[in-house]
């Protein structure tokens, strides 16, 4: 049970993010929830590639003994960059919503006729 602690942390992070996205009314809080979910996904990818007693997959002055898997780390890098770009775009739209509706609540933004 305790060996699987990283996977349980991943599940908890995704649940917290889902809670914020589903239950909260504030758009900034929903964006924070999306970011927490993305952190959980990144942690899951890194966890999948880890092996006990192994080093980072870089050959510069390393002992070629056992290395963690590199593909999941490359995927995590992709995920982080896309996350930065998308969260910047989401925050820009939140700024425009605030300008037009004078509020960040999802109750006030039902009609998007602006």
């Amino acid at each position: 049970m305790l060996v699987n602690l990283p996977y349980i942390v991943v599940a908890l992070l995704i649940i917290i993010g889902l809670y914020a996205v589903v239950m909260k009314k504030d758009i900034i809080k929903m964006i924070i929830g999306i970011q927490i979910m993305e952190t959980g996904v990144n942690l899951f990818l890194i966890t999948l590639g880890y092996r006990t007693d192994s080093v980072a997959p870089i050959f510069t002055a390393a002992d070629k003994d056992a290395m963690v898997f590199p593909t999941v780390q490359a995927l995590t890098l992709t995920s982080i960059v896309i996350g930065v770009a998308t969260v910047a775009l989401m925050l820009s739209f939140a700024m425009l919503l605030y300008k037009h509706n004078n509020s960040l609540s999802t109750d006030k933004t039902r009609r998007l006729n602006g």
Partner: protein
Amino acid sequence: MKKFAMLLSLIIVGAFLLQVASEMREFGEPYEGVGPDDTIIKQYDNPTGDNNYMDEYMLNNSQEDTGTNNVVTAVVFDFRGFDTLGEATVLFTAVSSIYLVFRRKMDLEKDQKGKGKKKLGSDTIKEMSTIVRTSSNIAFPFILIFGFYIILHGHLTPGGGFQGGAVAASAIALILVAHGWDKAKHFFSKDNFSIGESLGLFFFISLAFLGIAAGEGFFYNFLAHDGYIFGNSVIAGSTGADINTGGTVPLLNMAVGFEVICAFGIILFSMLKGMDYLKEREDPPNTDSSKGGEN
């Protein structure tokens, strides 16, 4: 009632996630392949010597195939170059949308006000004190050099174009915060950043097409092991750092790093300008949106 249903579905989904998480295979022991008679084949004691598994192939052959010591960079820029092309395109598209959104709205407002000579941005980001400005002047070149070091050594040590670009862009943010909007506008311009971002992506795709021109495929590493530009061969296994290796991987790193610096600059300047745009709320840009807010 709706809230209760949402909470209930959230609890059900969470229970499933936790149950799956507790039944995953053990942490630290990834799948490593099963041999002919149910023997577990570990990495590096592969008895047959064939590379059946993707990660195993990349770890064993990245130095011969790409001349790159950092296997993660080899995966990002060589083995899975198409993936990185999509990633760079997503970054480019998102940043272009941010540029477009704020630019169009603010130009509309300026047209309606007529002689609107007021500069957006100068109210939000003001000049800070002398101590802050002096220390940011001292720190600026070191941060920039560290970012370029990470970009340039991406094929040898942890790092690469994306990470180093983010570090170098933080130097731009430092100048912007310490010296204020008006002085930072003298050094950096949003339009120049836009041109630079397009140029970075253009060089990235051009290098990929040069692989076809060299007679191989898209994203082929045609410079590795040829002895000229970044063309030294590396010995398999643990080696020292030789910057003249890697083939096209360092060049792709530079293109991506340039793109990321300019993209982050556009994000900074656009969103800070938009902050000032948010403050002027007594005069909405068009009447439709204000009517929509009332309804």
